């Protein structure tokens, strides 16, 4: 597609439940990035992929968070046993090239509310 598609737009989970977010990058883009934005403030980097391979996961919480980008499937970000502080908008971005002109195109985000 011509835009980064994130689903669902909104997700409400009870504390302790699992949450799974999806991201379809722009066709032909080989890099995918996930960011967490809390209260419309700073964007916290979580993880990046080069195709199906994890490229940089230095921002991922060690426990409860996992992500995948499998061939021919949307990328996913999964949070096991959600906590209240996981409430945020999660943005996905894709980029055609890491180096050179790494303009990243962002999706509209998934708003996760943990109650």
């Amino acid at each position: 597609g011509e835009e980064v598609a994130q689903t669902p737009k909104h997700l409400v989970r009870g504390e302790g439940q699992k949450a799974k977010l999806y991201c379809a990058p722009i066709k032909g883009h080989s890099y995918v990035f996930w960011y967490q934005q809390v209260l419309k403030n700073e964007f916290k980097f979580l993880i990046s992929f080069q195709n199906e391979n994890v490229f940089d996961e230095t921002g991922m919480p060690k426990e409860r968070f996992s992500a995948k980008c499998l061939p021919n499937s949307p990328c996913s970000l999964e949070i096991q046993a959600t906590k209240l502080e996981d409430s945020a908008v999660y943005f996905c971005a894709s980029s055609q090239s890491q180096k050179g002109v790494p303009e990243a195109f962002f999706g509209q985000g998934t708003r996760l509310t943990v109650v």
Partner: protein
Amino acid sequence: SQQGEEDPQALSIQEGENATMNCSYKTSINNLQWYRQNSGRGLVHLILIRSNEREKHSGRLRVTLDTSKKSSSLLITASRAADTASYFCATTSYSGAGSYQLTFGKGTKLSVIP
């Protein structure tokens, strides 16, 4: 870790005035990008400036980059009510082992009053 720091955090101006937002960063970068975020929406890419460039224009936008001071500024001329949004700078840098990061600042919330 926080890389870009924008100031001011909030800016309110009259329609037609110019708006200037600043961004400072800490480490070496490859380029710097400015994004706009309308309330509750995704990020829209505005302009990218490479580390070897000093100034760049795009329509009513003017971006400067001073790598010696590790700072950048975004100027929006002849502002419009539709420019009301939050503006973020983001730096790209390559860390060890070829790792690439796109790191955002906290943003400047711009309000343009009709």
